C-alpha cells in the first residue's frame, strides 16, 4: 500500500490502512457473490487479504536483520524479514455444492460474511483513529 520510500507513521498505521483496503476488496467479492447467487455455473470468489497482511508485516523468524542496540534505552526492534508489499489475491472457490441450477453461492453464508467483514472494517477504522489521535496528542502536547 505504501511506497517503501515514503514517510510511514509506523507499522501499526500501515497494517490498519491495508486492513481497511483489504476489507473493501472482500466486500466487493461478497457483493458479486450475492449478485450472482442465482446465476447458473457461477463460482464464488473471495479475497485472502488477512494472509497478505501478515506477509506484508514481515515474519519475526528471520535472524539477520535485528537492530543492534548499545544502550538499554534504545527500543530493540525484533528481527524481521524484509516486508513485502501488500498484495491480496482473488480466490475462486471451485467446490460444487448440490444445487440444481449450478451456482455454488450460499446466500446465508455470504450474508454472514458480509456482517463479519463490515464489523472488522469498522473496528479497524476505529483503531486507526486511535493511532492518529495518539500522534496528534504527541504533536500538539495536549490531551483531549
Amino acid at each position, binding site marked *: 500500500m505504501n511506497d517503501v520510500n515514503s514517510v510511514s507513521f509506523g507499522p501499526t498505521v500501515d497494517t490498519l490502512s491495508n486492513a481497511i483496503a483489504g476489507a473493501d476488496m472482500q466486500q466487493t467479492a*461478497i457483493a458479486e457473490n450475492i449478485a450472482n447467487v442465482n446465476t447458473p455455473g457461477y463460482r464464488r470468489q473471495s479475497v485472502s487479504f488477512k494472509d497478505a497482511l501478515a506477509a506484508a508485516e514481515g515474519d519475526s523468524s528471520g535472524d539477520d536483520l535485528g537492530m543492534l542496540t548499545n544502550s538499554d534505552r534504545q527500543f530493540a526492534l525484533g528481527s524481521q524479514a524484509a516486508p513485502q508489499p501488500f498484495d491480496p489475491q482473488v480466490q475462486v472457490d471451485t467446490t460444487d455444492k448440490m444445487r440444481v441450477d449450478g451456482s455454488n453461492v450460499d446466500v446465508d453464508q455470504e450474508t454472514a460474511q458480509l456482517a463479519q467483514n463490515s464489523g472488522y472494517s469498522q473496528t479497524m477504522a476505529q483503531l486507526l483513529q486511535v493511532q492518529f489521535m495518539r500522534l496528534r496528542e504527541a504533536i500538539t502536547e495536549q490531551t483531549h
Partner: protein
Amino acid sequence: MGFYSSVEISASGLSAERLAMDVIANNIANANTTHTPGGGPFKRQLVVFAQKPGGAPETAGDPNDIEKLGQGGVEVLGVEQDQSPDRLVFDPSNPDADARGYVHYPNVSVVKEMVDMMAASRAYEANVSAMQEARNMTNAALNILRS
C-alpha cells in the same frame, strides 16, 4: 475499486432479481391462461442470468484480479420461454378442447413459482444488505477524519 464498484455490483443484483420477480409474478398471474395473442396457451417464462464479463479472474494469480473484481456483477441475458409440454386436462365440453378432448393449460406450476419467488426475494434482500454494509464501511472510514 472500493465503495462505488461494490455498490454497482449490488445494484446489478437488485435489478436482476427484480426482473426475476416480475417474470415469476407474470407466470403466476397467467397460470390458467389458455388464450394468448399468438394462439395457444401461455408458456412459462424464465430469466437467464449470467455473470458480467470481466468479473472473474482469468487464471489463478492473474495480476489484474482485483481490478476485474470491481467490474463484476450479474446481467440478464434474456427472458426465454420454457418449452416443456403444456399441462393437458381432459374436458371435451370446454370450447377450447382440441380434437381429442384435451384442453391445453400453461406449463406453470404455481408451487414451483412460489419457491422461485422466495429465492428471488431472499436474494434481493441479501443484495440490499450488501449495499448497506458497503455504505457503513465507507462511513466508518470517513469518521477517521472527524475528531
